[in-house]
């Protein structure tokens, strides 16, 4: 089992875990079938976009920033109806690879919904990805509030 620890306490003691919630650095890339297709077709590879992801145990599904999907030119593969606090809306579904620390987490068995993340998070600070329970169920997460740390084990 691999364990990754994310510290949220700054040098001056400020507790970012309390203010921001668990936010981790991620890189987002095209899914494996698309990368291998481009390679086999001698087409240029997709770029990788780095950003932040918020771990949201209150969300049943994970969300990818639709602007990132458009920037990467990753096609959408399905649509689905989604209940939000603003009502029910149709969202596009994407397949992508999201990498954080040493773990690569693919939105594979379930596609991720594309959404403009800034419309979802009131205190959004450049988050490109919200990791919901559909992905979290693959990991063990420990929320260590007193020490401002989050540990994720794969």
């Amino acid at each position, binding site marked *: 089992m691999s364990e990754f620890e994310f510290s949220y306490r700054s040098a001056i003691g400020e507790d970012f875990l309390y203010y921001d*919630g*668990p936010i981790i650095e991620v890189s987002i890339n095209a*899914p*494996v*079938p*698309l990368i*291998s*297709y*481009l390679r086999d077709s001698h087409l240029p590879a997709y770029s990788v976009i780095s950003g932040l992801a*918020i*771990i*949201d*145990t*209150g*969300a*049943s*599904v994970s*969300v990818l920033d639709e602007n990132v999907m458009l920037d990467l*030119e990753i*096609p*959408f*593969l*399905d*649509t*689905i*109806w*989604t*209940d*939000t*606090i603003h009502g*029910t809306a*149709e*969202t*596009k579904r994407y*397949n992508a690879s999201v990498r954080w620390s040493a773990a690569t987490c693919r939105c*594979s*068995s379930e596609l991720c*919904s594309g*959404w403009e993340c800034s419309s*979802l*998070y*009131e205190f959004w600070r450049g988050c490109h990805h*919200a990791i*919901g329970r559909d992905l979290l169920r693959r990991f063990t*997460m*420990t*929320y*260590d*509030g007193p020490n401002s740390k989050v540990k994720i084990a794969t």
Partner: protein
Amino acid sequence: MALETEIALYNELLPSLLESSMGKYVAIKGNDLIGVFDDMDMGYRAALDKYGVTNFLLRPVRAEEPILDMRNLQFGIVRVRV
């Protein structure tokens, strides 16, 4: 509505797909049923090989389409095991 043609064909084929291919993935572009595949990657690759990098439908065969719930998203972390 995106993928309207593809979803209409999927719904038309669904009764027979449920009998033969429950849990598998179906790939459709326009009115072309590209195929039914054991997993998503196989379907994805087959669709790319035939149509290149474009939007198409890649959907698991299931009796009912779920409605996802993102109503809690704005509230951040609400429940963890410590």
